[in-house]
Each structure stands twice: as structure tokens, then as C-alpha cells.
């Protein structure tokens, strides 16, 4: 299919905490692969997925790669906005996210729109 501005985006929904399982890593792999093929991409963080955006992650001692550092590379790959569910932050008592990420807070109406505007939805 030709790549044009009317192309509907792929929506990737991150609802898992980093490190406890492989979901966050696999989601990132899909995001990077999609952008390499110049696919329009929206990424939403909701539920436990917002834990991926906490600052100062340092997973060397649990033998994992730093997923936050990899998320910070997304703008280089053309992902300009990371949508974050405001309500999920409130429920988890989180007041501070990493300041280097291009975060856009969204409410439930905006989340619904992201799902409906997408051509394909992947949930991790």
C-alpha cells in the first residue's frame, strides 16, 4: 500500500510493567520495526504500562536492558508523541515521569479515539 498522509496509524498499547515479563521489550521491538518501514504509529501507555515511563531505571543488577533508554530513542525513529493515560497515573500514586520523553496526557475520550482511529491495534 502506498505510504501517504491519509494512512491510518498502527496503535501499540502498553499495559504491562517493564522487566517482570517480556511484553514491554516486545512492544518496543514492534515499534522500532514499524517505524523502520515508515508506518504511522501511535503508542499509548495505560494501566501498569505507565511504570515503563518512571525516571532513573537501572536494571543492570537484574540482568535486563534499560527499556527507558530505548523508549527515549523513539523520537529519532519518528514517534513524536507518547500518549499516557492520566487516570492510570492517579490510581498508582505516580506524580513524576521521565522528563525527556515526549509525553501527552490523555483522558478516556481521547483513548477511545486512539483505538477507533487506528487501522490495527496491538496490545502488550
Amino acid at each position, binding site marked *: 500500500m502506498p505510504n501517504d498522509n491519509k494512512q491510518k496509524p498502527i496503535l501499540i498499547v502498553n499495559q504491562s510493567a517493564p*522487566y517482570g515479563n517480556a511484553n514491554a521489550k516486545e512492544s518496543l521491538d514492534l515499534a522500532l520495526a514499524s517505524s523502520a518501514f515508515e508506518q504511522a504509529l501511535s503508542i499509548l501507555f495505560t494501566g*501498569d504500562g505507565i*511504570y515503563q515511563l518512571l525516571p532513573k531505571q*537501572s*536494571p543492570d*543488577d537484574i540482568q535486563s536492558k534499560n527499556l527507558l533508554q530505548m523508549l527515549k530513542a523513539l523520537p529519532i525513529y519518528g514517534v513524536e508523541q507518547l500518549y499516557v493515560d492520566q487516570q492510570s497515573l492517579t490510581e*498508582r500514586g505516580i506524580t513524576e515521569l521521565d522528563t525527556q520523553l515526549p509525553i501527552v496526557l490523555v483522558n478516556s475520550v481521547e483513548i477511545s479515539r486512539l483505538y477507533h482511529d487506528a487501522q490495527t491495534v496491538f496490545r502488550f
Partner: protein
Amino acid sequence: MILHTLNKSPSNEALSEQLSQVIQADDQVILLEDGVYHSLLENNDTSHWLGIAAHVHALNDDLKARGLTSNNSAIKTIDYADFVRLSSECDKVIAWY
């Protein structure tokens, strides 16, 4: 005295409910893996395990990995040597996962 280990985040509400039914005030709790996200929340509710247990610990490596520092004064940061010591001091270990 029982040692309870919990490795899931607070969004797994069924797990917290089940632990709350069983736990007693002098039991020990160790938060590990995604369980350390419980340290972000304060809960003084006496029907919730966080409000019941007097001794709640969190593994330092798992806190550090996730960008957390235990600023929750009710939760003590421990290492693997402490984990081993607590395991041997308690009558049994129950893993909540």
C-alpha cells in the same frame, strides 16, 4: 511467623485480597519483581495487608531496576542476604504470584 513473598503489582487486586485474608500482624512480607510497585502506595486500611503487616521489605535490586527508591518509610529495603536470613527465621514461606 510466616514469610510472604509478593511479586505482582497492585493492579492484581485478587492477589492482595487473598494475602490480606491470611496475613497476621507479626508476619514478614518481601516485595520482589513487580511487587515492589506496592511501595508507591500507602495503605493504612486494617483490612489490607499493607495496613496489617508490621514488617514489609522490598528487594533493592528490583526497586533500583524500576526507578523506585523506597520513600515509603513503612517499607524497608533489603538485599538477597536479608532474604535468605528471613527465609530461615520464618516457620514457612508462602509465595503469592
